[in-house]
């Protein structure tokens, strides 16, 4: 079996797991729960094997094109972390690993329904955006161990931030009651937009297929063209209305979700604790790997450790949001909901750092388009 078949299997498994976890959330049948975990583990195993296979594929190519390299250099340079596609795969792998650890440690499956959608979303995004899955040789600037450490640690921290995002969101769902409450509006609108965007991208995918090649063409001629940015004004207005109506529905009926989450044996305190702990692990890793190692790499490659290009600046913004999180817990009256909102916003900043900068803003080292 080759790596793309196995990646396909893991994508299917995570999406299936998402459905089973949600079913489990609704019916609380322990057999369903076991099935969800089993499917997740199966997806994880097949993804792990796929990553190893891809690594050996890179290795074979590297040793063929660059036969004079030593074994260790060849292995390092072949690490499957060199483009958008591979780094998203690695992110999902870390996220699922982190989730499985939490499931084991806290002996609860209820987070599954909130974590697997992120995994499914990321993997679906790979297919929808049609990003390159080719194995290409490494350009000179990318041949750096600092870069490898930088990318790897960034994605480990991103996955811990994704976990805190899920638990933060669950905390908000559990803790808000009134529709007029700002925390309630925040979580319903945020999740509403999330689902709408996902759905709109699905529509793009269905109507255009895999016609595009690069993220740039995706954003220019593809994204939301089936809905909000459709040539026909009627269609675009109609989709906007539908989106607003949908978000309104989420806002209106959000308390149903609260009932479901509330019927579980997870306490708000536990959610708060996991949110904090994930960030407490992710923050140092992100600081060291994401910011410091990235700066060292830039220093070695270009002679500037910090150049305020959009990618760097967005990493810094993300870092500030999480510093905000850590310090706002020290403010009087800032425990609980407000802090959870900051945790949710932190991950939104992560998504923007990672995808928004590549897709919307161009920069000196927009990942994957390096000279």
């Amino acid at each position, binding site marked *: 079996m080759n790596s793309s078949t196995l990646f396909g299997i893991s994508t299917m498994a995570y999406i299936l797991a998402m459905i089973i976890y949600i079913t489990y959330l609704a019916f609380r049948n322990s057999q369903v729960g076991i099935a969800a975990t089993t499917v997740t583990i199966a997806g994880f195993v097949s993804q792990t094997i796929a990553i190893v296979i891809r690594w050996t594929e890179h290795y074979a190519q590297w040793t063929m094109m660059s036969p004079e390299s030593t074994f260790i250099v060849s292995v390092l340079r072949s690490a499957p972390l060199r483009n958008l596609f591979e780094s998203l795969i690695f992110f999902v792998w870390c996220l699922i690993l982190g989730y499985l650890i939490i499931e084991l440690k806290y002996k609860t499956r209820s987070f599954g329904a909130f974590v697997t959608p992120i995994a499914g979303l990321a993997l679906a995004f790979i297919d929808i955006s049609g990003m390159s899955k080719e194995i290409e040789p490494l350009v000179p600037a990318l041949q750096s161990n600092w870069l490898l450490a930088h990318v790897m640690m960034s994605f480990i921290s991103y996955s811990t931030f994704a976990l805190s995002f899920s638990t933060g969101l669950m905390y908000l769902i559990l803790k808000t009651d009134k529709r007029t409450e700002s925390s309630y509006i925040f979580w319903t609108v945020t999740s509403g937009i999330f689902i709408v965007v996902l759905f709109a991208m699905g529509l793009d995918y269905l109507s255009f297929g895999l016609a595009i090649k690069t993220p740039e063409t995706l954003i220019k001629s593809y994204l939301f063209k089936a809905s909000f940015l459709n040539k026909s004004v009627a269609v675009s207005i109609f989709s906007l209305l539908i989106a607003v109506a949908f978000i309104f529905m989420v806002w209106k009926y959000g308390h149903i979700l609260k009932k479901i989450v509330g019927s579980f044996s997870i306490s708000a305190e536990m959610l708060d604790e996991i949110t904090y702990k994930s960030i407490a692990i992710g*923050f140092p890793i992100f*600081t060291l790997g994401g910011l410091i190692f990235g700066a060292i790499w830039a220093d070695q490659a270009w002679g*500037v450790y910090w150049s*305020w290009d959009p990618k760097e*600046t*967005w990493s810094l913004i993300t870092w500030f949001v999480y510093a905000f999180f850590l*310090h706002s817990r*020290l403010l009087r009256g800032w425990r609980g909901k407000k802090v959870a909102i900051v945790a949710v916003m932190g991950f939104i900043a992560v998504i923007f750092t990672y995808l928004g*900068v590549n897709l919307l803003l161009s920069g000196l080292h927009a990942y994957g388009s390096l000279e």
Partner: protein
Amino acid sequence: MEENKNKSIIDKIWNFFASITLAVVLFALIGLTSIVGTIVEQNVAPEKNLKLLAKFFGDSNAPAFYKILDSLGFMDMYHSWWFIGLLLLFAANLIICSLDRLPRIWKLAKEAIKPLTDEQFKNLGKKELVLKGKPDKVKETVGTAIKHAGFKFLEAKEATGYQFYSEKGNYTRLGVYITHLSILLILGGAIIGIIFGFKGYLNLPEGKTYSVAFAPGGFLSREEESEMEAIIERLQATEGNAKEAARQFGVDEKTLRTKMKRYGIWPLGFSIRCDNFLVDFYKGSNMPKEYRSWLTIIKGNKEVFKKSIVVNDPLTYNDVTFYQSSFGMVPNAHGEFIMKITPKSGAPETRQMHRDDKFIIPGTDLQGTLKDFSPALSFDANNRPFTFAEQMNNPAVFLEFSEKGKTKYSGWIMKRYPQTWGLPDGHTVEFVDYWGVEYTGLQVRKDPGVWVVYLGCMVMAVGLYITFFMSHKKIWVRLLEEKNSTRIIVALTANKNRTALEAKTDKMMALLSKSDGGGKQ
């Protein structure tokens, strides 16, 4: 009265800067304003941002918006007075906030642990266990178990038994301050770099020697340009020694340095020569794998240092670092073709030649002529040669061979295709390089602050590790005498990660009860 009022103002300022609220506000402000700088492109030609603004506000309004944003410094936002002001405010906040809290934290860290009173034992969460035997008998076992769990302890004799008490990681409370200090170090290092550093470039042709580097400069008039060239020439002659150059010009050094600054000329204080530049390609493809420059540092007319550099592996001499950043062809340059000729039976010989030069294959009558050159030759599907790029991707020479005045054969010899090197008679001619026509683009930097920044990074790693993965733990173990047995009561606190300490204590208790043959809880 007067003094009191003064003090309260100072107090107010102090409290303002010591507050976490300010810190959180600054986090938000710096974060939000930074976003603007990633949307408005920084340091680019006005047209680019005008176009961007036109998209949001329409063509007619864009210039007005541009003017407003420009006057507020948004076109070079991260160097604008208000952004730097925010960073300084942030630093002041950090310093004063830390100073404000340090004494209290220091006291908490220094304060020696004391035995707990009955009252305190009641209030702290605790675990209990009963062991057989009197306190004097089990004392030893309990002590060993505590030591085993990694705590050195003190003991106090009490009316009904003993109390052991211990703490670990007092100074980990300072981890936060180490983290905060590191941020100041990084900011300080960045400031040192901005004030005392230099960032520029040097396009160095193969075979040429330079003693200056250049900063990107503005527009110059004709006279200025010729003055600039004169200064460069003089600095070249003095190995980048500004003092000596000033003496030769007959001006004082300060005047010369002001001019140099104006023209973006930066003296290296030594000379650097590019011996060669080569692009290496992945085998069987046109993807570049490596850009390599062979550089030599010259000081006092002596070669003092040699290194070949690639991207990610620069050369540093005298605190000046040279990075491989680009390359290109020197316009109108006439280089040398370097060919390695190996006769069918004989030793290889390396020759340098120019276009239309003739050469003899050693030991034969065969005469070659170098007729033509292409920077990037390849074969198309029909095996016909074609030039595919302007850069030297696969340089090739066209050679014509004759014997006794009669043309025998001719063809292209390509640098990267060994299959083209062989001649029909069994001799080989390898095209080694077309030398002296490319330049290597070097980024030149001197940054005395970079080590402070790196030190700050290391301190930050240590600080964060202490802050998030270590804690100040205290445990108290009381041995209470009961009828023929001892009740063990354990109380504990930790400023972080209490669950880990509890797990450790549970393990210790389990061990104790096992050694006792299964005591009851």
